[in-house]
């Protein structure tokens, strides 16, 4: 068990190093520089030159990379050229918003998907099963950003039920009101994300429960006279829950990828929107930091899922 985890972590290290070099070089290869846009057009080119020099942008790339790594281990990701504040603080503020949205979406997804998967499996091959299959299939096929745009149009603009921009209302006072305002702002993106992200959990749970329905322990329980409702609640559901929980790790990748779109559509100030903005400002420090963070989060999500799955199913722990 521990050996498996350790091996996985050891493989992760070179992956992160390669990613960091790749990201760093790609960010350097972007055309333009972070200063030209922000200075007065009449500014002296020598001044620009000087700015580039003190920021070390003329050094050879390996030296710049090495400086960056050394600073990284001191918890210093540099300053954002666009916002003029430390990247760690900038991203920290945005990460919380993304995290809340992701957490809310995940919880809501499970709240919708678990009953659906159970219900579909219970009525296997009957009408409810087909309806749920069609539902998951339709939600899976449509590109998510189209749903977001249509959703924000119908519920945000036409019906006016939900706010369409930001993470908090500007008039909210600190305390309960600000918490309420925050929740109100993540409600629509969260609900849309959950309604259209159920397919994996539903299908996996359905096949899992259908397998369990035919297993011996369920037959034993039935022959003991356990009521049908309790069989599902206590016997089948409990056994199927852990592998389902493992999906939370894998879903991190999807959520992070989706955050770029969700946050753009809703102008929600999270990491995804920060990335999109930083690209147009050539804010290297922020871009490299964000790609690295997303990559590491992807890795950790997969690791988490693999660990849960290897606890549940020892066959995965081969080698």
């Amino acid at each position: 068990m521990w050996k498996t985890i350790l091996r996985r972590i050891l493989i992760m290290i070179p992956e992160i190093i390669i990613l960091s070099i790749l990201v760093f070089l790609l960010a350097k290869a972007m055309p333009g520089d972070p200063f030209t846009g922000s200075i007065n057009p009449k500014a002296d080119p020598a001044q620009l030159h000087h700015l580039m020099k003190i920021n070390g942008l003329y050094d050879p790339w390996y030296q710049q990379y090495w400086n960056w790594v050394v600073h990284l281990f001191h918890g210093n990701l540099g300053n954002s050229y666009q916002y003029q504040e430390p990247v760690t603080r900038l991203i920290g503020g945005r990460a919380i918003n993304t995290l809340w949205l992701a957490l809310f979406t995940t919880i809501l997804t499970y709240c919708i998907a678990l009953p659906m998967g159970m219900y579909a499996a219970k009525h296997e091959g009957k009408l409810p099963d087909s309806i749920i299959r069609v539902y998951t299939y339709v939600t899976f096929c449509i590109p998510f950003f189209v749903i977001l745009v249509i959703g924000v149009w119908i519920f945000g603009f036409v019906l006016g039920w939900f706010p369409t921009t930001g993470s908090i209302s500007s008039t909210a006072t600190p305390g309960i009101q600000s918490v309420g305002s925050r929740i109100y702002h993540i409600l629509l993106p969260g609900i849309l994300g959950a309604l259209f992200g159920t397919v994996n959990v539903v299908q996996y749970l359905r096949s899992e429960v259908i397998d369990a329905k035919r297993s011996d322990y369920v037959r034993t329980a039935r022959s003991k006279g356990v009521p049908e409702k309790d069989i599902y609640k206590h016997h089948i559901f409990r056994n199927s829950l852990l592998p389902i929980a493992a999906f939370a790790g894998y879903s991190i990748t999807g959520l992070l990828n989706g955050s770029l779109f969700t946050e753009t559509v809703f102008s929600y100030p999270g990491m995804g929107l920060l990335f999109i903005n930083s690209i147009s400002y050539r804010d290297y420090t922020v871009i490299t930091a964000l790609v690295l963070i997303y990559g590491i989060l992807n890795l950790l999500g997969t690791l988490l899922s693999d660990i849960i799955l290897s606890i549940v199913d020892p066959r995965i722990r081969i080698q």
Partner: protein
Amino acid sequence: MEENLNKHSNISAADLDRLTKEASEEATPSSAKIIWNEFKADKPAMGALIIVIGFILFVMIAALFINTPKMMETNIMNYNAAPGSNGFLFGADTGGRSVGQQLIVGARNSIGIAIGLTLISSTFGICWGLISGYFNGYIDWGMQRVYDFMMMLPMTMMIIVLVTIIKNYNAVTLTFIFSIFYWEGTSRLIRSRTLSESEKDYVAAAKTSGTSNFKIIFKEIMPNISSLIIVDTTLSFAENIGVETGLSYLGFGLPIQTPSLGTLIANANDPNNITQYWWTWLPAAILIIILCLSISYIGQVVRRSADASQRHGITD
């Protein structure tokens, strides 16, 4: 033996015809035939097939008659002209450009990129999966590590960064950039099937008789998993439409002068457009939904026909 041969060579032409006909009737139908039967048995699937093929042909041909640079010229007189007014059937956008024409050219571009992306990434993914699954040991291990690394990359972000680096990109470079990141799903699927396939007897027989590895992989194993390949390619085609349009929506797909369904939907980023001028973006959104649903539905039918136990059509 000799006698037999003589007997067979004496068969008359009519008999030979009849015998071939009988034999072909009894033989398992080809996979193309099975898929066709499946479509014939499923009316909605037939509808989806006609919609998709008809639509693709329509935009491909209609786009030839549209002068794109002229279409993309702004004309303030037609600012957000409503559908039906100023001679615009689908209205005009903020720059006074015809939405209807942009829809046709945009759909052509988006579908073209999706087809190109599907061809390149599927070919690469299939080869990767076949080779990785066939050669166990170090080759597989190395290829798996590359796969893991690619999976960990935040794909959308990497594509955006690459698109910013390349100065004069067009639809072709864009297709290649997308292809770098979208072969993993296919390769995983093909690898796991190849793993189980290469343990079968016919592969062992081919190996003992000295067939080269290359020949075994592409002439023996690949035809045997062809149904899986067809299914996966159809389904990833539907997915790939979403890939390009999504990035164009964010502003990192096709250049502004080249319309795509995604850039049309990006009109909705303007609060005025989304509330008052729905015709600038909604048709493109609906078009994408219809296309994706129809293509995936076709994919489902193809998948069903690949699995004998689920077929609806008469196949015998």
